[in-house]
């Protein structure tokens, strides 16, 4: 009987409007406000002291910041490793002596590449100077023509204003840019085969070993002398797809 009455009281409390029954809870909180606040203060002070003492713990916000910072550093590290790997492969392939290889990113088409120039993100700060040879896809693509502190302009060998000493079939010649992604070696006595490799000739202080520049695209008779040939050379790398290059600094300052 007692159980029934008490259970009934419970159900009355349950189905009664919350606004009415909540007054019991508020009354309890009002009456026991002082001991409740003391207890909460004790609890909070213990937790705060524990939080201060535990120096190994950081806030969630700080943890996320550190995590993101680590991700950025790791991405940067991966990029640098790739650079090192690429440059060391290059060094293994060619006997460049004590030359320093400086990797640089090509700015995305600030100047039309068909005009024969690209701009890179390394400059005087990285010991770049005019005349230094620039590599891409293991081939010479041009020389540094203009240097500022934070960047440099690379004149491609296809630029009409460019003239690069080259070797073709054992003969040293001068190759001029012809525009339209082509270059020309004028007045050759004999006609080389199509696809013959054209190498950049050694140049004191700039290039210690011949390196490929392009291949013979086609040959045409010289306009002034019918017995001589003009050799048209095309690059062996895709200039349009150029994203990064390597500058050869022969005598780096330490």
């Amino acid at each position, binding site marked *: 009987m007692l*159980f029934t009455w008490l259970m009934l*009281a419970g*159900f009355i409390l349950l*189905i009664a409007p919350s606004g009415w029954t909540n007054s*019991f*809870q508020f009354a309890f909180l009002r009456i026991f406000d002082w001991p409740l606040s*003391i207890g909460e203060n004790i609890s909070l002070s213990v937790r705060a002291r524990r939080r201060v003492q535990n120096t190994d713990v950081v806030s969630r916000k700080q943890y996320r910041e550190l995590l993101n910072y680590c991700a950025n550093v790791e991405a940067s590290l991966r990029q640098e490793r790739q650079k090192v790997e690429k440059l060391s492969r290059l060094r293994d392939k060619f006997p460049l002596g004590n030359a320093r290889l400086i990797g640089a990113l090509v700015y995305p088409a600030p100047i039309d590449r068909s005009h024969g120039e690209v701009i890179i993100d390394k400059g005087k700060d990285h010991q770049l100077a005019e005349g230094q040879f620039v590599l891409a896809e293991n081939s010479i693509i041009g020389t540094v023509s203009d240097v500022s502190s934070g960047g440099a302009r690379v004149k491609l060998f296809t630029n009409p204003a460019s003239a690069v000493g080259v070797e073709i079939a054992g003969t040293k010649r001068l190759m001029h840019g012809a525009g339209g992604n082509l270059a020309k070696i004028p007045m050759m006595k004999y006609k080389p085969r199509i696809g013959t490799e054209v190498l950049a000739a050694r140049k004191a202080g700039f290039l210690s070993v011949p390196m490929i520049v392009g291949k013979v695209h086609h040959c045409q008779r010289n306009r002034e002398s019918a017995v001589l040939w003009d050799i048209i050379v095309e690059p062996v790398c895709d200039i349009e797809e150029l994203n990064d290059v390597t500058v050869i600094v022969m005598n780096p300052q330490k």
Partner: protein
Amino acid sequence: MRWFRFAVLILFVTVLQASVLANLNISPDLLLILLVFFCIYCSSTDAIITSFAIGFAADLISSPGLPMPMGPQMISFGLFGTLLAHLRRVISIRKMPYQALVIFSTALLAGGLAYFLAFLKGQTITANIWTVLLGVSIYSAIVGPFLFLPSAWWMHIRINRFARR
């Protein structure tokens, strides 16, 4: 049964539960431990009254981990306290492991019923409620048997006087 001592004890534990233990993510349910204590060591009539009274106190301070309306815990504590008081006539619950087991199962069942009744009244149930309930049950089961001795001392109850009837 010393009702004045009972009232003081319940008030003290209620305040303790609502203040010091309220800031913990998962804390032992001291009121539920007292419910089991009184159901084990008091007569059936006293056990029924104490169960409903403790349930009412639990409703006043809401449940650990979930704000409750008035009523659900009074009903669930009263129901399972009465059942436990009747069960004690058949099964002896004197050893600490058994007491821990009884506290654990009572916490799970009473808590589950209280949340269900609160849900029926329109209370939103949070997703981690079962984790909280399980945590409270385990915590209470571990701590509970050790609190029986000071509770018995305060209530002037000899805890080894009840044998199987």
